[in-house]
């Protein structure tokens, strides 16, 4: 079992690529930087495939497969080491991260070919792969957190890649700071877990927690608080309410970055953490309810904003936030495998959509505004075809991947009883509404970009198809978007859902009988709900077609008549302005006036300068004793004599002083 014994190879290869490119790549030609970076990621992907192959040869008792590489922290009974673990969930995440990551690396070869800082881009991208792999393969929360922070760093570096542009630098800072707020919650959650269970190893912690019953720690007990704190971290990383504000701004980075980090992998880290901690979440129903509600609300909220955005990447960004909400909704109602399944299919079609959008932008010479595009379907055929496949996938049209994953989420939501007998129904309706909006804005994007009148100047923009290095990954991702969902398809005609079955050892249900009845009910509802979902998706598409192709003037008229609503949506519900006024400005005021002017300048500098000045004053005073006048010296001699007498005869001197008083 060569790779399984040496799991560290998988993250190490991209790290090597990053180091080599970072240190030496400055003077190398693009070809060499390419080979190092893409080669490193490719080898990592092959290593991951080999690891998966070996994994299938393991017997069930060996899973989860943990290997400890070195002890990082050892304090008393607590040990946090560089331990890597492989179980079914890791397998899914590994393949997604390395596979999609490799495709995006190949795409970037063509996309970034004319950009400055080529080597820097690939160094950062490889660094990101390293941290992400650490994150998904970690066997304890501490190492996971290392990866967590690392991907945040890589995200900052890559968002601010064009750091000479102020908006890009600001976006990088915003992403990092908002992430940090989530990380604070994550850390507190880790500390609480450590205090409760004494260990942060996944295997040990979950074994200790498994025997506890669902209400063991009460409604707002330790487990609930710990899970809510972990979710706070996840909300920061995966852009849920209220920490989603960084993701739309993150579109300042190059498009491959948006595809890899802010669609397929980094933002899914939050979902991964919640899924990994499902043992804890299942025993904290209140936390699960919060996760489901926040996820559902975010999904709907982001979808409404996406309706009116005009930047092609911003639409996709809000779409990502919305789809992440779906994943959290799934985890919140207990359908963890459905959430992970949606994570996987989303990685495929969202990466595809972003890369295709990048191809469009590349074709249009840098134009990103939807209102300045149109009629491109004939000119960039392959980009159009792959992007259309992606749109169908995300809208949930069968038999593409999105349909299966979204459908299983909605089904689980419908059946959820957490929070009340029909609570699940509310979640289901909200999810359905979001699906409608998703379909609508995605088709809007397609129609505005590829159909209709050409709203750009032919003479300034030379629309050209992208090179093969960019198109081949698009094609591969399109194929994956079509077939990726078929792993779960058999559920429709009675056979088991392969994906869920694969993940079953990880997400085993608490009791067997519950699972049995749930499955039976599920089976009966599945087909009607699926039909409803398809109808909704088609309705969305039709509405977009009618508004943007049949009657192109209607959208403007609607915008004018509902101008208040339109403007609120266009300004993203003014959330950024609210945060700025309520949080950023008071903090800045506090920092300037209290911490800078008072504490730093007056108190600290004042103390230090004051000491120096005091010494000067004392020195000035003491100088006067050296007057050069002999008679004064005589008096000082007398003073010294008095002091010596007083010191030596202190017991006798004290009564004298008392009498004198």
């Amino acid at each position, binding site marked *: 079992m060569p790779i399984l014994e040496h799991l560290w190879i998988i993250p190490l290869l991209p790290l090597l690529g990053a180091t080599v490119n970072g240190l030496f790549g400055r003077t190398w030609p693009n070809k060499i930087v390419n080979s190092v970076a893409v080669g490193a990621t490719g080898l990592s992907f092959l290593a991951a495939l080999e690891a998966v192959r070996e994994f299938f040869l393991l017997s069930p008792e060996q899973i989860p497969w943990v290997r400890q590489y070195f002890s990082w922290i050892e304090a008393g009974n607590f040990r946090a080491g560089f331990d890597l673990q492989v179980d079914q969930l890791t397998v899914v995440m590994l393949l997604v991260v390395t596979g999609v990551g490799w495709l995006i690396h190949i795409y970037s070869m063509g996309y970034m070919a004319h950009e400055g800082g080529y080597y820097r881009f690939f160094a950062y991208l490889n660094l990101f792969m390293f941290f992400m792999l650490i994150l998904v393969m970690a066997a304890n929360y501490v190492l996971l957190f290392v990866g967590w922070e690392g991907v945040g760093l890589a995200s900052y570096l890559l968002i601010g890649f064009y750091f000479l542009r102020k908006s890009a630098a600001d976006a990088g800072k915003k992403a990092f700071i908002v992430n940090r707020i989530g990380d604070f919650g994550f850390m507190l959650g880790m500390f609480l877990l450590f205090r409760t269970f004494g260990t942060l190893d996944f295997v040990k912690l979950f074994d200790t927690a498994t025997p506890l019953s669902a209400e063991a720690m009460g409604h707002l007990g330790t487990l609930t608080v710990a899970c809510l704190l972990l979710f706070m971290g996840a909300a920061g990383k995966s852009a849920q309410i209220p920490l989603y504000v960084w993701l739309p701004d993150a579109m300042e980075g190059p498009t491959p970055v948006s595809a890899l980090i802010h669609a397929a992998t980094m933002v899914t880290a939050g979902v991964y953490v919640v899924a990994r901690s499902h043992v804890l979440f299942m025993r904290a129903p209140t936390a699960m309810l919060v996760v489901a509600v926040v996820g559902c609300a975010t999904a709907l909220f982001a979808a409404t904003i996406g309706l009116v955005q005009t930047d092609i990447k911003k639409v996709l960004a809000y779409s990502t936030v919305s789809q992440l909400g779906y994943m959290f909704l799934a985890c919140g109602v207990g359908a963890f495998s459905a959430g992970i399944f949606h994570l996987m299919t989303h990685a495929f079609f969202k990466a595809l959509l972003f890369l295709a959008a990048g191809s469009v932008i590349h074709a249009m010479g840098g134009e990103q505004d939807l209102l300045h595009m149109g009629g491109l379907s004939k000119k960039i055929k392959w980009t159009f075809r792959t992007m259309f496949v992606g749109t169908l996938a995300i809208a949930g049209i069968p038999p593409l991947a999105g349909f299966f994953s979204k459908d299983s989420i909605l089904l689980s939501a419908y059946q959820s009883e957490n929070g009340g007998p029909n609570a699940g129904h509310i979640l289901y309706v909200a999810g359905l509404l979001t699906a409608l909006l998703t379909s609508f804005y995605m088709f809007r994007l397609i129609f505005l970009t590829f159909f209709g009148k050409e709203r750009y100047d032919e003479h300034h923009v030379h629309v050209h198809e992208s090179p093969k290095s960019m198109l081949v990954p698009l094609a591969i991702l399109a194929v994956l978007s079509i077939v990726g969902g078929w792993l779960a398809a058999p559920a429709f005609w009675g056979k088991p859902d392969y994906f869920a079955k694969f993940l079953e050892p990880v997400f085993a249900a608490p009791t067997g009988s519950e699972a049995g009845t749930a499955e039976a009910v599920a089976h009966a509802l599945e087909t009607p709900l699926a039909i409803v979902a398809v109808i909704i998706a088609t309705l969305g598409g039709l509405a977009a077609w009618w508004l943007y192709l049949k009657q192109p003037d209607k959208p403007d008229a609607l915008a004018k008549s509902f101008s208040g609503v339109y403007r609120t949506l266009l300004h993203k519900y003014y959330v950024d302005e609210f945060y700025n006024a309520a949080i950023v400005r008071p903090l800045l005021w506090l920092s300037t006036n209290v911490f800078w002017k008072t504490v730093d300048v007056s108190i600290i500098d004042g103390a230090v300068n004051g000491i120096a000045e005091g010494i000067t004053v004392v020195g000035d005073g003491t100088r006067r004793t050296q*007057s050069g*006048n*002999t*008679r*004064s010296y*005589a*008096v*000082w001699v*007398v*003073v010294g*004599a*008095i002091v010596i*007498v*007083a010191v030596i*005869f202190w017991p*006798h*001197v004290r*009564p*004298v002083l008392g009498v004198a008083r």
Partner: protein
Amino acid sequence: MTAPLIIFFVLATLAVGGALSLIFQKHPIHSALSLIVVMVALAGLYLLMGAEFVAAVQIIVYGGAIMVLFVFVIMLLNAGIEEHTNFSKLAGFPGLLLAFALTGFIAATIARSTDTVQAASQPGNMASTRDLSTMIFKDFVYPFELTSFLILVAVLGAIVLAQREAKP
């Protein structure tokens, strides 16, 4: 009021008077003569305490040699009434206070530790010169020799320092 006590007070008054005169006289020669008075009074007090040898040495050495030296130097340097300069601010009122403070400290400190010091017993029955010399040449012979060496050094030093500059 026994006779020794009266003698003591007389001699004490003499000593203090001489010291006061030393302070308040303007011409240094008058101060020197006042100092001689103080020394004679102290010699008398030593006699009162029964230390005859010390009294004799006091008069011979202090009064007869050191004070004569002082008078010679005053005459050699033609010292006149000292001029009244007042450059030192400290040496005025604060100096006065401090001097009183020092005196008071010392006096009170020693006067209060009466338990270790009793009244004197019969005078004259132990301070014989023979005993004194035995002590000097037996127990304190080393300091004695050192002091003779010290005097030699002092003589040499005084001669060298006070030479007239060699004329070229």
